[in-house]
């Protein structure tokens, strides 16, 4: 009898993608049954029945895991949002005649992109919810059983012995797990198929839009740089004129009259103070460039990730259709990079 049971369990375990938790639970139920020998629904029978049922139900079709894709979608949405906010702020603080008007228009346009990315996050989250609901099916059955038992106890309904109930619940859990796995697999496959074209379209447009956003950032950055340089607009010219004068006097130092030597000494003081001003100005330019570099890196990463993201979705859809597994490791890596770049821009 046990040999047959183990064979049935082994078949259940081998049947496609596995539900080791369920077979283990069935096995445990079987072992408990030996000790307790409950008459109404022998756990041994229950375990065997559960194992056979698992085979009959298609032995646990496990749905494709959409969680890495959902994580990448959330990171990408966050990158799109942060990029837009950074460029809007940069534009608003520029000296362009229509800076405020442009920033307001960009806000309207980019809010629409953020809304679309939020819809993609909701879509990916829907996939994740379906996957999680299937994964938690067995736990859910046990939770509901516990709730029903406590209602029965409160109402004074006499329940069968605990061992027998446990066996029945385990069967229900396996059945419900299988039903939900199949349902989740079908739902996720349908959704991936249905959404693939729309998602590719979104990625295509947002790739172009992030390129335009980068153009706007470059233009605002060019203005920010020019403003720093023009704040003391002839500094470089004066610095060069002073150095030329020093050079000219120094080349004739041995023959210079006293008044020119005094002038040379005075010019050395002037050039030092001018050099300090140039250094301070260059430091401000370096700050402007560093801010731009971080913002541009985030936009570039979001732009590059659009193609990966859309391709990962397509690969997932194809893999599910062809009952294959798929690696989206590069997307996981991209997600980590995006999060780091977002942190850098937000820390500015």
């Amino acid at each position, binding site marked *: 009898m046990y040999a047959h049971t183990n064979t049935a369990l082994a078949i259940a375990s081998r049947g496609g993608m596995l539900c080791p938790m369920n077979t283990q639970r069935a096995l445990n139920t079987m072992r408990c049954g030996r000790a307790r020998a409950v008459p109404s629904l022998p756990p041994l029978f229950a375990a065997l029945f559960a194992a056979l049922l698992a085979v009959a139900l298609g032995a646990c079709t496990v749905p494709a895991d959409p969680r890495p894709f959902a994580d990448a979608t959330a990171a990408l949405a966050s990158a799109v949002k942060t990029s837009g906010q950074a460029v809007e702020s940069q534009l608003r603080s520029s000296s*362009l005649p229509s800076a405020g008007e442009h920033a307001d228009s960009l806000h309207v346009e980019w809010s629409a992109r953020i809304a*679309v990315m939020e819809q993609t996050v909701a879509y990916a989250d*829907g996939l994740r919810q379906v996957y*999680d609901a299937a994964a938690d099916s067995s736990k859910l059955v046990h939770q509901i059983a516990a709730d029903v038992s406590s209602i029965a106890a409160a109402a004074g309904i006499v329940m069968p012995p605990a061992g027998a109930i446990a066996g029945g619940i385990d069967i229900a859990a396996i059945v419900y797990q299988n039903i939900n796995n199949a349902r989740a697999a079908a739902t996720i496959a349908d959704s991936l198929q249905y959404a693939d074209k729309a998602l590719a379209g979104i990625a295509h447009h947002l790739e172009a839009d992030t390129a*335009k956003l980068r153009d706007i950032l470059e233009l605002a950055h060019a203005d920010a*740089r*020019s403003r720093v340089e023009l704040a003391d607009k*002839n500094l*470089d010219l004066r610095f060069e004129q002073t150095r030329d004068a020093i050079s000219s006097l120094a080349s004739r130092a041995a023959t210079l009259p006293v008044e020119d030597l005094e002038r040379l000494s005075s010019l050395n003081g002037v050039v030092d103070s001018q050099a300090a001003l140039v250094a301070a100005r260059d430091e401000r330019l370096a700050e402007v460039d560093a801010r731009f570099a971080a913002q541009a890196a985030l936009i570039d990463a979001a732009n590059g990730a659009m193609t990966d993201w859309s391709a990962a979705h397509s690969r997932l859809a194809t893999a599910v259709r062809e009952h294959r597994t798929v690696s989206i490791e590069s997307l996981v890596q991209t997600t980590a990079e995006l999060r780091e770049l977002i942190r850098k821009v937000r820390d500015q």
Partner: protein
Amino acid sequence: MSPPPAEFKPLKTFAQWREKLSDLLDEADALGAQDPSPQAGVLKLNRRFTDFQVWSPPEVTGVEELDSIAENARLALLDNAVGDRIRELANTRSVLLTLGKELERRAEQDRQTASSMRMDKLTATLPKVNEAIQAALALKQVIDQATDKDLAATVEKALDGLQKLRETVEDIVRA
């Protein structure tokens, strides 16, 4: 600090600086006439308008006025280019929103499927049923042996439990 660009180095007189500015303004007009204005060309010309102001000698009479014209032209050039990019963004907004709506509809379907798989309606009802039964049992016990004050409090509690159950069921029916 970088040396003066070669195009500005030989300029000495007001006339030479004015002629250079005139050339730059012609180039700005040509760029502005393109839709959208080319990014690289705009950035390069912005650089040259800036350099014009940086290297034009203030001691030459009238140069300040030329600088002012150069600055206005620089700002107009960038402003126009930004406006072009924003208009381009506006052109694709409605297509994107339509695509987003498609995903939103699918997301709603998937959420409903997940909710059904989680048996949300059932799991929301069971604890309320339990509470209602417990309240009813307590009421039965109190009716047998308690004072009027205890009875009133327990009836209120029982009614409250039943009300919660009714609300839960109504929510489920509405959903």
